[in-house]
């Protein structure tokens, strides 16, 4: 009797879910409540336009430009808005910096709050019960699952997104990247490094 309850592998046939969603969509469109063009635009926006490249741009600029980094840590929302990344689920941004003394990790235990304008929509694992339950009680075990080891004397600082504040991790700049331009630096900034489960990529690992 071992059901599989993985969030992306539910035992209800997807076709049934598709029919349920389509039925609701038909109802709301026919009733005049929803513009079908809005659905297309929403999907297009969050599937193709808004994603972790935005956040990577922010991080790379902070690495390359000390004045920007200062503004970013002082007022995340304003500094990120300079680059045009604003809006829903990122109205109030706080950028938290990894240092040799502090490793930041972001979770939302109560639902799955996530900074959409800079990271896009959250991955399945971020929304899963295992991550939501374990990140606060066993952050080092979580990090180990991502291959990340943090020394015992470094503070693992978990941010539980219980309000509309949204947290973006500024990972440590990898060594060996002196003088790199921002677009090259941005290639080292993975989505996972901005959630805090991994460090930024080493230069040799970047594509």
């Amino acid at each position, binding site marked *: 009797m071992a059901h599989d309850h993985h969030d992306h592998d539910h035992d209800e046939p997807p076709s049934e879910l598709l029919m349920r969603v389509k039925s609701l969509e038909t109802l709301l469109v*026919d009733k005049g409540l929803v513009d079908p063009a809005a659905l297309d635009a929403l999907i297009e926006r969050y599937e193709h336009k*808004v994603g972790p490249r935005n956040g990577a741009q922010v991080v790379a600029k902070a690495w390359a430009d000390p004045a920007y980094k200062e503004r970013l840590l002082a007022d995340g929302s304003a500094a990120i808005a300079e680059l045009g990344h604003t809006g829903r689920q990122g109205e109030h941004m706080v950028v938290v910096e990894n240092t040799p003394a502090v490793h930041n990790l972001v979770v939302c235990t109560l639902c799955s709050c996530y900074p959409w304008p800079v990271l896009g929509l959250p991955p399945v694992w971020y929304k899963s019960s295992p991550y939501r339950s*374990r990140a606060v009680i066993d952050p080092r075990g979580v990090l180990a699952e991502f291959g990340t080891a943090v020394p015992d004397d470094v503070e693992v*600082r978990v941010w539980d997104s219980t309000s509309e504040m949204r947290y973006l991790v500024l990972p440590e700049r990898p060594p060996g990247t002196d003088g790199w331009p921002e677009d090259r630096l941005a290639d080292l900034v993975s989505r996972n490094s901005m959630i805090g489960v991994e460090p930024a990529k080493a230069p040799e690992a970047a594509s």
Partner: protein
Amino acid sequence: MNGPHDMGGMHGFGPIDPEPESQEPVFHADWERRAFALTLASAAIGGWTLDASRFARERIDPADYLAMSYYEKWLEGMRTLLVEHGVVSAAELAAGRPTEKANPDRILRGDAVDAAMARGGPTEMAIDAAPVFKVGDRVRARVMNPEGHTRNPRYVRGHVGTVVLHHGGHVYADANAVGERRAEHLYTVSFAARDLWGERAGAADTVRVDLWQPYLEPA
């Protein structure tokens, strides 16, 4: 409410088992795309707040909540809200066909999507009352167990931490979930992991939680 959603500190859900970042699509099936977009579009009608949406999902039967995928919960929450707010009738929902046309004050048009999403819905809000706490204060998360929506998670209640950030007035989630938009001072409180979880937690580690003033008392 002390629902299945309040899962910080639970055991037994198994490994995280992440998909590799480079291989994970934004959506895993077409029904997810539709459920996502429908949820945002129907919220734009203005019938309910984001906190009401959260509360609708929290009220899903606990066994179902834990078994459902993310967008299934969104879909189920949306169905609840549409009927509770009288936007559609239960009969319409069951039939998938309207019995009459609606005449909403506003709907989200396709050409307005990008601007609306880029604008978002800020929750920072002017507040007359001075804050009771300041950065550096020791505070205790109140022991409270409301049956309604709250963002004071069970795992911090009763525990003492230190105010590390004060964000000013923000729309208070507990009230906003029932349509009452008002501000309370919002703080980030840092808890020592060992205070929350006991001696097996990392000695250097902390958990920071955003807590509104009504969740807090002086320690």
